[in-house]
């Protein structure tokens, strides 16, 4: 064991059982270390009941394996999942109040690293989460030699692993609240560490740890910024920092309760700081929404954007308000808890430590902070209500404007339609006249002219009868040509139009393969905000000779398909089929869905 008493005589310690690239200078070594890591997670009585149920606290066998996998086919018989990495064993619980359990974690570690992570967990209805570990061995050394350099790495590991483990046990609602507070990165949330050690080398008066050099630097790896250091009446040392506290005492057990209260209180403080940042960020969102509303006349997308941001921010603000309520209840419960426990505290050193840590004052400060934030949230919600009303007014204004434009357009369309009708009637008359003229030309072509004598028929028709026959040809020719044009027109028009609402996830790879097999004639892409809507059209039997197609038969079919490339959703389809009456709507639907299913387009 290196002699760490002399700070100047730093010894470079060979790295054992770690993948540390750097050479560490060990200045302070702790003995018999117990770690208490606290965090605040919004909990209520109902959440504790759900938590106990998930852990299996009510079952006869009080141990279970946990996984993050969600069963999306609970009705099925079997399922396969990766190896289970967390094991829990319930030690003590109350259905509505708390649960104490031991967790063993087997998350994969790099080669050469062996971590036997067993920790105790306490969860209660106030949101108090405590993880407790007794370090037996660290970096190949026993519990009487815990280097702070190694300890900082162990703490980083425990903080991350405990978040991952809790992620499997929390409800979706709790995860949502945590993500909201930690800007979507709740898996990296911070916690407060309380280190209880039975000894330290060197053991010097508390003030001497604040040497501004090596000792202080090394302690800052655990504590971050120093807040204060104290020598307690029984010779214990208390080193307090913003992210951790170290208590060195011959009897650390007697300080357990204040260690748990303080680490929870400080973790709540960390939570409140994040919550406060989130609140102010939402105030910025309110400013952005106001700017968008102000720009509504200039920017055509402003109202839609404002609407979307407004609903998102309002949803978040309501969640924050609910979260604040949990915080408020926790601070009240904590105050009550502390009052009861303070009465039972008899050891003067423990009392002194509680006083120096300022637990009572901090509980009151936390309560005041929550109260202060209530005002901020109320103000925020009022601002959002005001913005919502403003946005509604602008929407109505735009709607009126839109309606007026629509009415104007309708009037113009009516005039155009009337003019079109007149033109169409004229064209139809012209068509009939021209068809007859064509018929007469055909007669003339076969008879050598429309003159009676040119026929040269013996004892034939007189001039009047010939004229009548010619007119007859003219009428028949007109009718035949008119019918032929109508038939052609009918053939060109879609006979059966079926609109299908799909709204199903698709497999991008298979959809691409599906499209490649078809001759896409048109493609449209609408990009808006987070959406990328694409419309494609293809035809079957788009030639003179139609072939027999599976599902469609010998028909011309036009298909328009709309899907969103960003969300990977098939939205809708418009299918047009020739010859009414020959195919039913259900058959069209079946034929189209079968095509998609056959090529595994649905994801």
């Amino acid at each position, binding site marked *: 064991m290196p002699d760490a008493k002399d700070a100047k005589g730093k010894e470079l310690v060979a790295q054992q*059982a*770690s993948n540390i*690239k*750097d050479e560490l*200078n060990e200045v302070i070594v702790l003995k018999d270390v*117990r*770690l*208490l890591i606290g965090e605040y997670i919004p909990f209520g009585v109902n959440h504790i009941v759900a938590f106990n149920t998930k852990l299996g606290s009510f079952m006869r066998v009080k141990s279970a394996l946990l996984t993050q996998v969600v069963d999306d086919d609970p009705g099925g018989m079997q399922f396969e999942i990766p190896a289970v990495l967390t094991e829990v064993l319930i030690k003590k619980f109350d259905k509505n*109040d*708390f649960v*104490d359990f*031991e967790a063993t974690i087997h998350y994969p*570690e790099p080669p050469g*690293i*062996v*971590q*036997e992570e067993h*920790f*105790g*967990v*306490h969860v209660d209805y106030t949101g108090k989460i405590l993880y*407790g*570990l*007794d*370090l*037996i*061995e*660290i*970096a*190949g050394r026993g519990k009487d030699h815990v280097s*702070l350099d*190694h300890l*900082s*790495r162990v703490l*980083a*590991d425990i*903080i*991350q692993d405990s978040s991952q483990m809790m992620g499997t046990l929390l409800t979706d609602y709790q995860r949502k609240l945590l993500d909201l507070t*930690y*800007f*979507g*990165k709740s898996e*990296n*949330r*911070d916690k407060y560490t309380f280190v209880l050690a039975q000894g330290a080398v060197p053991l010097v008066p508390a003030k001497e740890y604040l040497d501004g*050099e*090596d000792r202080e*630097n*090394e302690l*800052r*790896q655990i504590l971050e910024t120093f807040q204060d250091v104290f020598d307690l009446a029984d010779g214990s040392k208390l080193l307090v920092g913003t*992210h951790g506290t170290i208590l060195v005492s011959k009897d650390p*057990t007697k300080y*357990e*309760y204040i260690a748990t209260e303080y680490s929870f209180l400080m973790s709540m403080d960390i939570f409140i700081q994040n919550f406060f*940042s989130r609140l102010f960020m939402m105030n910025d969102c309110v400013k952005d929404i106001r700017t968008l509303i102000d720009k509504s006349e200039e920017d055509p997308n402003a109202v839609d954007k404002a609407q979307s941001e407004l609903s998102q921010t309002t949803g978040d603000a309501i969640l924050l308000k609910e979260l604040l309520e949990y915080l408020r209840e926790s601070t009240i*419960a904590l105050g009550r*808890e502390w009052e009861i*426990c303070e009465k*039972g505290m008899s050891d003067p050193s423990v009392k002194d430590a509680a006083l120096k840590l300022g637990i009572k004052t901090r509980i009151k400060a936390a309560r005041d902070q929550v109260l202060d934030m209530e005002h901020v949230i109320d103000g925020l919600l009022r601002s959002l209500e005001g913005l919502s009303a403003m946005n509604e007014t602008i929407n109505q204004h735009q709607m009126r404007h839109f309606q007026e434009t629509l009415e104007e357009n309708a009037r113009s369309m009516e005039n155009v339609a009337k003019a079109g009708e007149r033109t169409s009637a004229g064209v139809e008359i012209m068509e009939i006249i021209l068809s007859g003229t064509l018929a007469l030309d055909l007669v003339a072509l076969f008879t050598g002219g429309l003159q009676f004598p040119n026929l040269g028929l013996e004892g034939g028709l007189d001039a009047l009868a010939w004229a009548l026959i010619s007119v007859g040809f003219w009428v028949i020719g007109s009718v035949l040509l008119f019918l032929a044009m109508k038939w052609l027109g009918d053939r060109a028009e879609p006979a059966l139009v079926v609109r299908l609402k799909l709204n199903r996830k698709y497999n991008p790879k298979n959809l691409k393969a599906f499209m490649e097999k078809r001759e896409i004639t048109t493609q449209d892409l609408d990009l808006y905000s987070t959406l990328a809507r694409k419309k494609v059209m293809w035809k079957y039997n788009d030639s003179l000779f139609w072939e027999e197609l599976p599902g469609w038969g010998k028909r011309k079919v036009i298909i328009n398909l709309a899907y969103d490339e960003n969300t990977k959703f098939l939205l809708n389809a418009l299918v047009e089929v020739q010859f009414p009456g020959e195919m039913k709507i259900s058959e069209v639907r079946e034929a189209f869905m079968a095509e998609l299913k056959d090529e595994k387009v649905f994801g």
Partner: protein
Amino acid sequence: MPTTDQNRLLYMISLYSRPSEKDDEKVVWVREMALRALMYEGIVKKVFSWDYAPASVLTAEGRCFMNISQEGEDDINDLRELGLINALKLSTSRHYYITAYCVSKNGLTELAKISKDDKDVIDELVKCKCGGNVKAEEKDGQVLLTCDSCKAKQPSGMMEVEDVSYVSKAYIPYLPVVPRREDA
């Protein structure tokens, strides 16, 4: 009298910051995160004799663990106390505060006293293969080492928290059961 590490650090800060010489001239500051990334690279390459440990740091993308040198931070404070660098606190759009540093006019004078060897090791540290200067920037939750000249980009190792083998046993502290409500 600054130590070797402090001299090297001062020279490194001077490469990325510049005080104004006239009133209308802008001051160039180097952000704390970028400096920490270069400090980490310097430790790994044995340019600095400090060590580092993981610490939870707030970034634009939320909290994450990064390898931070407390001795390096201490040397930054020493340089500030000596009046060789200035520190600027500024708030971000996420309502947390960051610090930026700039070599002071005294610091520029002090640079002349730094040995060529110390300057050379820092020049070597911040030099890209193409000859340009390496920059560190935080993007999408990652700290990247980039070079403007050759557009090279690589993530800094400062975000890779090293592992230590350990064995622990579960410990549940004594917690008195307190009734849920006062009337309970």
